[in-house]
Structure formats: C-alpha cells, structure tokens
C-alpha cells in the first residue's frame, strides 16, 4: 500500500489487481512517477480478492490485469457490473493482450480503457488523467511541480 499526493487538489484512491507482486510494485511506482494524483493505493492478486476489498473501501479507479488465476479480468469486470459494485468506478486494464476480440469484449463490458504492456509512465498518466477528467495542461504542470526524481 502506498500514497503520493504531492500538489494535488484531489487525490484518487487506486486499486491495483494483478497476480504478479512485481507488476503491482511497478504499477505503483509508475503511478507515482506519472504525475497522476495518487491517494491511497491498495492491491489484490486476482479479481476475487479485489471484489472483497471493494466491499469495504472507497476506490476511485481500478487498474487490472486480464490473465489471472482464480478470477481473471473478464470475470472481475463482469462481477463488478452484474452486482453493481462500485457503480461507475472506472476500470482500466493493463495487459499484454493483443487479441482484438478480447479487448473489445473488455470495452463492451464497461472497461474505461486499456494500456498495453510494455508501457511508459507518461502514457499511463495521460490516459488515467483523461479518464478522471483532468486536462493534460493541469497534469503536466503538477507533474513538473511535484517532480522528485
């Protein structure tokens, strides 16, 4: 779990869902470097664990892998929408998936977008800020101001 909300008027709580502990670490670090307004960051190793976390926590944005054991990304977003958990909370998939049919399936199930691995921090920051309704100018200004690397 981590926080990083330097210079933000509003920080977003993010849930990272990935079966790889390393990938969760990398995503957290990427969010911190991207200029995205990160509040609290929670982690789950599959869709089922994520659903349990979402029962009791307010999350503004979900970043999820697609290929996971126990409950994969498709099962996860289906459950979210079927059970109306977290209403309109944006779900963004971070994936190596190249199959257009499966990517379309994710979008049709209500995903807000997807990021293909390998990715660069600025791509993630730009997409997430757009999804959260921030302008690029605002994000860039904050990114430079809050830069500590």
């Amino acid at each position: 779990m981590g926080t990083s909300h330097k210079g933000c008027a509003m920080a977003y709580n993010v849930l990272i869902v990935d079966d790889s502990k390393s990938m969760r670490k990398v995503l957290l670090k990427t969010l911190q470097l991207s200029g995205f307004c990160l509040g609290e960051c929670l982690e789950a190793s599959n869709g089922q664990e994520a659903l349990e976390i979402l029962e009791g926590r307010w999350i503004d944005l979900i970043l999820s892998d697609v290929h996971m054991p126990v409950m994969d990304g498709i099962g996860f977003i289906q459950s979210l929408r079927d059970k109306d958990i977290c209403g309109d909370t944006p779900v963004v998939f971070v994936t190596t998936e190249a199959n257009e049919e499966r990517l379309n399936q994710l979008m049709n199930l209500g995903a807000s977008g997807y990021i293909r691995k390998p990715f660069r921090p600025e791509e993630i920051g730009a997409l997430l800020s757009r999804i959260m309704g921030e302008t690029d100018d605002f994000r860039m200004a904050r990114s430079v101001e809050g830069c500590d690397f």
Partner: protein
Amino acid sequence: MISGWQEVLKDVISDVLETMFFSMVEFGDCGPADGGFDFGSEIQLLNHTGRTAISLRVSEIFARMITANFLGIEESQVTDDDLSDSLKELANMVGGGYHARIKEAGWRLGMPKVWKIDPGSVDTTQLAGELDFGFFGEPAGSAVVNQLPD
C-alpha cells in the same frame, strides 16, 4: 541466417527490455554462454489448430540485473521470488508483443512459466536455431519460437 520469427522477436525483445527493464541488448555474435544459461521462461500462444511456444533462456547475472531495474531496487535486494516473477513478466510481455506483431486473429496467450535450468540437462530448444542476445559483449540469453505438437 535470420528468419522471419527472429526479426519479429528481436524487435519485441528490444522494445520490452528497453521500456520496462531499462536494458539494451545486442543480437548475434555474442554466442551462447560457456556454461549454458541459468533460467528458462516460456509462454504459449494457443488457438484451435495448435500451440506456439516462445521460450527464453537467460544468465543469472542478466536476470538479476533486469529484475533490479524492473523493480527499481538494488541487485543485492533481489529475492528469488522477484526474479521468478519478473522473468514471468518478461515472457508474458514478449509473448504479447509477438502476438501483436504477427497479427493473427484467434490466438490467445497462455500463462507464463519459469524454471531454473539444471546445469547437466540437455536443452532441446537449442536444436531449433535460437536467437542469441548479449549485454556489453557478454552472452545474456537466447530466445526461440517453436511450433508444438498437439
């Protein structure tokens, strides 16, 4: 001789290593490591007609270095779990990138796996004409694409 799959794989491996693992490798000329490589990782592309395996083998030195880069930690802090996890991610991203570039519909990615190579073992992937890559002139790893029988 460089074949079609090798050209695709060179492009994918360079992209993944540079973007996520902050490492640049050179292809060819470096040859295989003297004592063979230390870790293998593999991912399969599957469809209704068959399976294609993308296999990577890397030296422990290279594996530790890219894992440290990937996680943003010192090499001395890399645990065996970190190493295994990051080599799985490497195979996953190489498999996804390969799939994206060959643009064949209907394929899906399997789950990546990683293993420690027994120094005395015979590695059958060597028979298929692998793609060697090195790091600062030292052998770092090799990759191969194989069609598997059903």
